[in-house]
């Protein structure tokens, strides 16, 4: 949207206004909103497996995720804005994950915590979803089995950058859109 926007001048008449001034206003507002959002993350910890132990360790006193403003998990998807998918997602659990994601209100972000959620990990079998980005859109991938708390905090900071700029993944991207480091193919089936 460019061009003049209406504004009342001093005499109470409508006149033209400089668009760049209004955009300056909205970018300042956006920046402030982004700052507020990134330091008040209400995460929904969708914890299933071993990564949950490292999630606990990150959230507790030693590594303390509370200093990032993310200390208070919300156990209802309606009240949360970041979905931390922590631990392996099996095909039995995938519809549940999709439903929780759909129940979350905008704006929402998704963090794939642990390599099982990024690409399926080493569980290349009949039961495991090979990466949750086949089911829901993912914003930040934190690989590791389980990732050290320092890795998690690094991922959280990358998420905060994304939140600051209002960037969100909106479609399930699938394996082709993963970062290069997560593109390695799985072991072929003949090895059985």
């Amino acid at each position, binding site marked *: 949207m460019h061009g003049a926007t209406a504004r009342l001048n001093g005499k109470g008449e409508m006149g033209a206004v400089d668009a760049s001034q209004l955009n300056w206003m909205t970018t300042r507002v956006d920046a402030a909103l982004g700052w507020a959002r990134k330091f008040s993350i209400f995460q929904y910890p969708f914890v299933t497996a071993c990564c949950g*132990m490292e999630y606990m360790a990150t959230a507790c006193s030693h590594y303390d995720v509370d200093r990032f403003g993310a200390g208070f998990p919300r156990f209802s998807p309606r009240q949360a804005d970041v979905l931390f998918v922590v631990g392996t997602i099996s095909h039995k659990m995938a519809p549940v994950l999709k439903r929780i994601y759909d129940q979350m209100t905008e704006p929402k972000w998704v963090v794939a915590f642990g390599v099982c959620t990024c690409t399926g990990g080493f569980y290349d079998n009949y039961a495991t979803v090979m990466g949750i980005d086949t089911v829901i859109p993912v914003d930040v991938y934190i690989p590791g089995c*389980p990732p050290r708390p320092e890795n998690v905090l690094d991922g959280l900071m990358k998420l905060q950058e994304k939140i600051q700029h209002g960037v969100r993944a909106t479609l399930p991207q699938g394996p082709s859109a993963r970062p290069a480091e997560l593109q390695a193919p799985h072991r072929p089936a003949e090895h059985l």
Partner: protein
Amino acid sequence: MTLAEAPNTTETRHMFLNMGPQHPAMHGIIQLIVELDGERVKGIDVEIGYLHRAFEKMSESGPYNNVMPYSDRLNYVSPLINNFGYCLAVERLMGIQATERCQYIRVIMSEISRISDHLTCVGASAMELGAFTVFLYMIKAREMLWELVELVTGARLTISYGRVGGVKADLPEGFDERTRKTLHEVRKTLLECDDLLTRNRIFVDRLQGTGIISKEDAMSYGITGPFLRSTGVAYDVRKANPYFVYDRMTFDVPTGSKGDNYDRYLVRLEEMEQSMRIIEQALSQIPAGPLQVDFDGRVIPAAAMVDEAKVGQTGCFKSVEVAPDPTLEGSTKRFHTAINAPEKRAVLPPKEDTYGNIEGLMHHFKLVMIGHGIRPPQGEVYSASEGANGELGFYVISDGSDRPYRVRVRPPCFAIMSALPKLLVGDQLADIIPTFGSVNMIGGELDR
């Protein structure tokens, strides 16, 4: 029509409440469909399998040592116990006896794992009842133990430390001193948590008298471990069928009497103290480690050793020590015989031999390459060890090839979860939380 004559049209029906697969108190992956009459639980249907990761199928797809990372992720709060349980089974199948020092190391690491498991269980169930501080204190204690584990194995949680015939590496220097200090700190933390919870009116009221199970029912359901001991049966695999060096340790097996949640909490607290006792005894009894050999003090980097060996200059290698990559620390000749069984069919050679002479290289090759590897004779074995939740059994069948034919894990919390209807029917809705917390359901073990 007066009120007295009006027909009674109130209709009561039971309500079905779904405590879905995603629920903070269900530890993420259990679905309970609870039939409620007001607040009383009338019936309950437990749905599991949301974390099925095909451990048993994947174990059949690689050599014997490849099962180690999968076994870590079974009971992922006490991974060392799973590792060593599996190693015990394969060693029995092959007729290998681990060295004494290795057995002591395994006992120490298993008990550290057991303490971490109980800390997580009690901490998480306290948090679910509102005692968030206790959770933070216990996770602090667990962090200290994980730092110890990291010193020895290199990782905090999924460590893959056990090997068939031994362990990956010896204990580092100063481990004894460091462990004793850590145990001192853990005892202080446990004392604090004990002060906060054990005589806390709210905690006691919520836990006492809920989730009761009788001795006979517990045995019929196949329940073992702290859950069974809280009903009064003193069955502990470490005492009944001792393995490693548990028969040389003096420790008590705490038992409860009523089989309710409070007894389980007390049993777990006391078991942590007994585990610390075992660790201290093991540290003082452990036989000497690294070889006192008469090296002329030379240490040669691995790359240089390989270069010299390629041109045939191997004569000097008998009295040098190789300095391998830091991730291979503890596996050189100095440590090798102390922690690995003298069993060439299963144990990798020390790094000086692998890099320094052709026999060592061939030996390493024969144990590691696809198609070669550890080959137990045809047979089957069931080996029971005491996991943090009860009897962890590994049933391994070998068909004489390099891969296991069947690896079955007998999961202790599977039996306890099957008894959940028995535990919960008749109690109130709010009693589900402490009871479920005291079950110590670990998804990796339950669903495998």
